[in-house]
């Protein structure tokens, strides 16, 4: 699991690669929280290279979304692979977190 970060003006794009499960979810939380600076206005999490996410990983996404929500910073996800999309649909998290097909769509909405 690895988190790469790009800045597009005030929008932060975090690309997550590999697998997130209960063995590395704390590391995932540290990397994601650590990447989000004070002056960020929106966060786009690109899951295009994420092969698997367990419920422990979903908890981190939820925690970050809640933290950002309190600061009025928007968060969206994009480019989910089919298995990851299915995890979000079954858990119902697609109903509380905005999901876009591509990073470009997510950036257009965030910008």
């Amino acid at each position: 699991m690895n988190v790469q970060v790009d800045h597009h003006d005030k929008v932060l794009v975090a690309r997550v690669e590999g697998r997130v499960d209960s063995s590395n979810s704390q590391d995932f939380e540290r990397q994601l929280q650590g990447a989000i600076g004070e002056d960020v206005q929106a966060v786009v999490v690109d899951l295009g290279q994420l092969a698997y996410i367990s419920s422990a990983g979903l908890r981190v996404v939820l925690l970050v979304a809640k933290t950002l929500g309190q600061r009025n910073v928007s968060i969206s996800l994009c480019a989910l692979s089919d298995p990851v999309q299915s995890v979000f649909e079954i858990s119902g998290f697609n109903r509380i977190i905005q999901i876009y097909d591509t990073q470009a769509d997510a950036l257009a909405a965030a910008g």
Partner: protein
Amino acid sequence: MGDRDNPDYKILVVDDEPDLERLVRQRMRRHIRRGKYGFEFAGNGVEALEVLTEKKDIDIVLSDINMPRMDGLTLLQQIPEVNSDLRSVIVSAYGDMENIRTAMNRGAFDFVTKPIDFTDLEVTIERTLRHLDEWRAALASRDKLVAIQNELDVATKIQQSILPDKFPHVDGCEVYGCMHAARNVGGDFFDVINLDAGRIGLAVADVSDKGVPAALFMMSSRTLLKGAAVGVEDPGAVLREVNDLLNETNDAAMFVTVFYGVYDPSTRLLTFSNGGHNPPLVVHPDGSSEELELTGGLALGAIPGFEYGQASVRLSPGDLVVFFTDGVTEAINVANEEFGLESLQGLFGDGRTPTAREAAEMILQAVQDFAGEAPQFDDLTCMTLRVADE
């Protein structure tokens, strides 16, 4: 740091040479003054054992070999009976390999040779004390680990004891459930709740993350669910109530996926609400199967005020409903392949549908056979509802 009356370490010097005490006190005076070392003296092995019996806080015994009444090699054999938390250093004649070897075999930690070189002795004492400190720290950690392990074992028993092990005998159906926790304490649970008019509440749930925090969250989720289930009619309303209660105090953003259904054996109607859980499988007598629909739900604990939908399905005689957690379908084998839904569906062929218990045990066995030696990180839970044959 210690002081003169209360030194950091105590060393017992055993030697029949009366001048040695004066020499040690003189050469070690700086350490004695600073309270680093304190010294006790004994003239032979018998006296040494008397000192060790009286004073339990000796850290090092520095002993000569040839002494009247009891020699140093005999003393070495006797020390563990009096105090096992110290280290012995032997003073031997230069080149006396036979006695040195015997002393080491009898548990001496190190040796110095005569005439005593006090610089060398200090290095030896320091090394011995470092070893002793590490040994004591390791013992303390081990004791703590044992204590934690004992508490985890109790937690495991408490968790297992809240899972149903007696299942209701109801005309027209049977129910069974079992769980294997991947660690000491798990985040999965299932429950079978007797409701009015012969109806049965059936719940299977999986808490995000594992270990002790998940186990605590699991315990409160299970209690809240049971409370709501006996007081509220509709499964969707039950999940809404539990979700709102879980959201009142949940800073860690933990959540629990819950499938909750109410089965009425008189109508064979299963009414259910799915709170973000993987959908149960309905297996028909001909071996075909399909997943129950999602009801537009959300994992419980995520956000307050969520409205949970519900749906109903009328089961047929001989149908089997398999409720499970994703530990079943996402179990990994040594080749890193997932067990998957298709393997689960493939367990049922044409012919007689197994009983509830047979089905649940067959599924867990199949998953464990598939996983083989591969380590499993998720709990395995399987609950089954078998509609009686016509």
